[in-house]
């Protein structure tokens, strides 16, 4: 059974149809990359999966449960963690507190200092445990957000443009971190990305969204040769930024 199945998801804002019938499934332990030109509905899709917004139609099934109508906090408790394109940390709280909140309210674990240190260690931030989130660098903030998602003990991790704005070294560090998470914790990852190069190293499979529809699903190598995909990107001004 697939870990996550979504079927025929529709969403429009005002009169603007952002998603029109998106379906796919994600297997346990898989790393799925989702790419597409600007405005293709990638972030909307992540928001629907994590429960930040509700779809107009369609079904989301996670671990065999229909969670379409669930609010985000219940999905978090069930094991869906996420990050945001622009980090949404609790900026006036410390790294420790940022991790403690999901650990307590999401995973329902005892929030011992050791456990929080451990989680911060995983993302390489244990030396910043008492720093305020607002004092961290962009790369550190992205790591902290990852740590906050990990504190939920997620089975599924949704990453929204986690590499945006990072320098190549930092990108490489996070790439290996994600790989490590899958290897060691068996976490399934859905990753929406502009930086295609990073995806080529990580993703088992890539989905391409264009104008609210899935136009390609398959291996990264096949994607870059796919005619539909090339048309979708070249037809767009913004094109490939990798």
């Amino acid at each position, binding site marked *: 059974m697939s870990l996550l199945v979504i079927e025929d998801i529709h969403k429009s804002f005002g009169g603007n149809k952002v998603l029109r019938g998106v379906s796919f499934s994600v297997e346990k332990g898989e790393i799925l990359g989702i790419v597409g030109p600007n405005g293709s509905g990638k972030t909307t899709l992540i928001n629907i999966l994590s429960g930040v917004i509700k779809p107009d139609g369609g079904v989301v099934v996670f671990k065999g449960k229909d969670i379409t109508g669930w609010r985000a906090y219940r999905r978090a408790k069930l094991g869906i963690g996420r990050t945001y394109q622009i980090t*949404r940390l*609790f*900026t*006036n709280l410390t790294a420790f507190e940022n991790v403690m909140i999901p650990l307590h309210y999401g995973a329902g674990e005892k929030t011992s200092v050791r456990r929080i240190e451990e989680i911060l260690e995983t993302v390489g931030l244990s030396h910043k445990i008492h720093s305020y989130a607002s004092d961290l660098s962009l790369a550190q903030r992205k790591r902290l957000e990852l740590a906050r998602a990990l*504190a939920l003990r997620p089975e599924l991790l949704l990453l929204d443009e986690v590499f945006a704005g990072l320098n190549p070294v930092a990108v490489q560090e996070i790439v290996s971190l994600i790989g490590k998470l899958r290897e060691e914790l068996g976490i399934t990852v859905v990753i929406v990305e502009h930086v295609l190069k990073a995806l080529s190293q990580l993703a088992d499979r890539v989905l391409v969204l264009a104008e609210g529809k899935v136009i390609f699903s398959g291996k990264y190598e096949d994607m870059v040769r796919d005619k539909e995909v090339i048309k979708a990107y070249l037809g767009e001004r913004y094109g490939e930024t990798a």
Partner: protein
Amino acid sequence: MAKLNWLVLGTILLLYALPPLLSGYWERVLSSVFMLTSLTYAQNVLLGYTGYPAFGAIAFFGLGGYTTAVLMIKVGIPFGISLILGGMVSGLVALLIAPPLMRLKSHYFAITTLALQIALAELSANIEITGGAYGINLPIYKGFLGTTIFYYLFLSVLLLSFLTNLFIERSKFGYALKAIREDEVAAESSGVNTVLFKSVSFGIMALITGLVGGVYAYWITYIDPESMFDLLLSVKMFVALLFGGVGTVAGPFIGAFSLELVSELVWSEFIEFHGVVLGAIIVLVILLLPGGILKSRG
């Protein structure tokens, strides 16, 4: 910072021993100070820790006061029980309306609570049970301790509201509220049931505010829509909070005490001008001290 909190607690406890040394006037002045401080603490739960400014929080002051008075006068329930019921009614009403109301943020939320306050004032002026524009007269309290009892009641509500703030500052519950304040979407995806927690926070604010209103009603002996839903009280509470420091445990105490005491001492000197002075103080506090004397992070 923590030291300051204990200092405040110590001061509150010391104030329990003060009445024998006070004249009636100073007892009344301090009672007013406690009243404002409690209201400020109640608002701090909501604005300081949860990030929602209930500009019309005095709606619950009136609701609590009227409930207490109606239960006492029209139903004949003793004051103590009426007071607690008054606080609970305020809290429950707040809990019920919070989920739709708290979909609004920042000044939209602020102004909608204000609309609620004015609407309640209008309602109580129009219906029979609240005495309409006649208001309600309560008997002058002549029992145990005389009117000094109100000093202790206000002080106790202050203690309660202080302890609530201290608890929120340090507990897991408080972290749920702070997470909402910092980023509601992120709080939700960290597993915090934001609707529940912000409603509870709104409810706590209303409960304390309602209790203060109930004590006020019996203390002042006469209530009418205007005095129970006084906009100026809302504003004073916000100025005290902003002045002292939003989202800190000691801030509301420092803010409300300095504002009320200074105004008491200074304003009798400015009979004609104090309205202008008050207006200027509000503008200046916000322009010059937007973070308050005690700054919480950020």
